[in-house]
């Protein structure tokens, strides 16, 4: 029964392709963030400019397009526990990243000691570990690939920067993965709309 529950959950949550569209747009936006930074908006605010509208679009699509076609489900207690665990991990990671960002922005002396440990390789492992944990707990298999795309994008962008400049290095490193993800999500979304027309239900 747990396999059935997992299959029903992944089908309900991810078959509409909206999550893939969201992650694709986010990755493309991440690739474009260097352009925004060069326009005068510093990180992490340049990332917020990307994340907030994309996140908003995700919620709107889920609520107004996906849910009326799929119907509403109340998941089992074990699934709710998993969701709670995922949120807890996300909050803890956000706090850690927030503290590190604050130390960087405030040019704190403690960052001098930490800066030796923060490099593209450690960032890669951190991102991949974090997204893999979420993917495992939440049964969202494509998140493993997304984690690899984001994690490998950072050292790739660093490697391409001397040749292409920061703008195009970032766009190439993240944008290609993002575009592939977006196209895949769009394909799933169109298929979902065709397979699940709006239907007024009665008993």
């Amino acid at each position, binding site marked *: 029964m747990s396999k*059935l529950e997992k299959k029903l959950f992944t089908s*309900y949550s991810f078959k509409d392709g909206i999550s893939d569209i969201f992650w694709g747009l986010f990755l493309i936006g991440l690739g474009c963030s260097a352009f925004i930074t060069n326009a005068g908006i510093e990180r992490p605010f340049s990332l917020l400019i990307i994340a907030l509208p994309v996140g908003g679009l995700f919620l709107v699509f889920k609520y107004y397009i996906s849910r009326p076609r799929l*119907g509403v489900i*109340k998941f089992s207690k074990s699934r709710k526990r998993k969701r709670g665990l995922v949120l807890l991990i996300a909050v803890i990671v956000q706090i850690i990243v927030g503290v590190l960002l604050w130390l960087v922005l405030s040019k704190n002396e403690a960052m001098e000691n930490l800066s030796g440990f923060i490099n593209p390789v450690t960032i890669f492992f951190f991102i991949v570990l974090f997204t893999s944990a979420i993917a495992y707990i939440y049964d969202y298999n494509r998140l493993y690939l997304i984690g690899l795309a984001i994690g490998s994008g950072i050292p790739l962008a660093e490697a391409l920067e001397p040749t292409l400049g920061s703008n195009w290095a970032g766009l190439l490193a993240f944008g290609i993965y993002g575009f592939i993800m977006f196209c895949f999500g769009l394909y799933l979304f169109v298929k979902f709309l065709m397979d699940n027309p709006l*239907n007024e*239900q009665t*008993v």
Partner: protein
Amino acid sequence: MAIMSILYAMDKVEFLYLMNEIGLTQGNLSSHITKLETAKYIVVEKTFVGKRPKTFIAATEAGRLSFKSYMKDLNEILKSVI
């Protein structure tokens, strides 16, 4: 069987979700739901979300126990055959 499998795995589902997942028509699913409700294996709750009617279906404790017992018997039969 398909209806009870889904309801066993979930807390509560909307009629629309069951219809899409199992692939039955509204009328066909309604008749199965009525039979299960008569047998007290499920409970049907009709509510409104805004101005739209929503029908939620959940398995009762008796329904869950009965389904679990049925699955156990089925597994034992399969084991004895294999």
